[in-house]
């Protein structure tokens, strides 16, 4: 249970950017899970099925604008809450980069954002993602490419702004 809740919570946090919102979303997802558990096909991966359920809920809620877009927590809050996986103070450059990416995630459409989170942050394989997103492999790959380019352009613009100041 703990493993699943952590996975869903991190997906919700990375997607929404708000710790409080992620807690509420995670609880909603588990309530939803409780209601549809009878539809689960045991021959398939439970983790993938749960991730699909979570992804659908996150995008539904996003589209209904139940949370205020553009108000992500400061990345420092994320780093403070994180466990040992976060960098110690040594890699300041990476930490700055992560903070910029954290903000830039908000500029991605929900479909592209969830794809980038699953692939580049959570390290899922393209095949696994095709199952979770219920999309052909080619569509998943082009969506990831679009998301990565958008993030790169956002960071490039940000650099430009910093240099202009």
């Amino acid at each position, binding site marked *: 249970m703990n493993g699943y809740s952590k996975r869903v919570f991190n997906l919700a946090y990375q997607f929404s950017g708000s710790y409080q919102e992620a807690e509420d979303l995670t609880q909603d997802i*588990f309530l939803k899970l409780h209601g549809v*558990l009878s539809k689960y096909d045991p021959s398939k991966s439970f983790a993938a099925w749960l991730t699909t359920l979570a992804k659908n809920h996150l995008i539904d809620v996003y589209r209904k604008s139940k949370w205020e877009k553009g108000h992500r927590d400061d990345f420092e809050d994320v780093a403070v809450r994180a466990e040992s996986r976060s*960098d110690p103070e040594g890699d300041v450059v990476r930490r700055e980069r992560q903070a910029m*990416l954290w903000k830039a995630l908000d500029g991605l459409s929900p479909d592209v954002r969830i794809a980038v989170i699953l692939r*580049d942050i959570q390290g899922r394989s393209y095949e696994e993602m095709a199952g979770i997103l219920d999309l052909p492999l080619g569509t998943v*790959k082009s969506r990831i490419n679009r998301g990565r380019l958008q993030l*790169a352009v956002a960071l490039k613009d940000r650099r430009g702004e910093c240099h202009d100041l």
Partner: protein
Amino acid sequence: MTCDAIRDLFSGLLDGELPAAERARIEAHLTACADCRELWTLLVENRDALAAFPEVEPSPALQARLAAVVAPRRPLFVRLHLALMPRLQPALAVLSTILIAISMYAFHPDRTLIDRSISRRIHLAYSRVETLYVRAEGWTGRLGEMTSNVLDAVKPAKGDDGGGDRSQ
């Protein structure tokens, strides 16, 4: 190749999925195009930064709430999971067949005819068993007689062993 066409291939290059010829074409383009080169460098740095994103632990309060949501349902899920285990499927098939047979009997419109047919078959089987029993008794009697005959036949021979026949 145009910059857009090259950028469409960036993910493939980043994931190491492109053939050598395509890689060489992109690298040649990157050498000549500063914009694409900058974007590529950002992509590589972003990939490393995203992969090292910190993972956050849900609060104990949330974990307690989630446990409360899931706990009542879990036994049913576990039972369902067990019931669908492949090794139980032959038993489930037998059980289903028995239940189908029972329901066919219970809801049959001519159930009294079936009852009569069953009782007739039971009587028939009972009478056959009785016949067999009587025959078996007869065989037991005959076997007893044969046994005593054999014993009678053997006794004089024993007497002869102890008598004068040995001297002949």
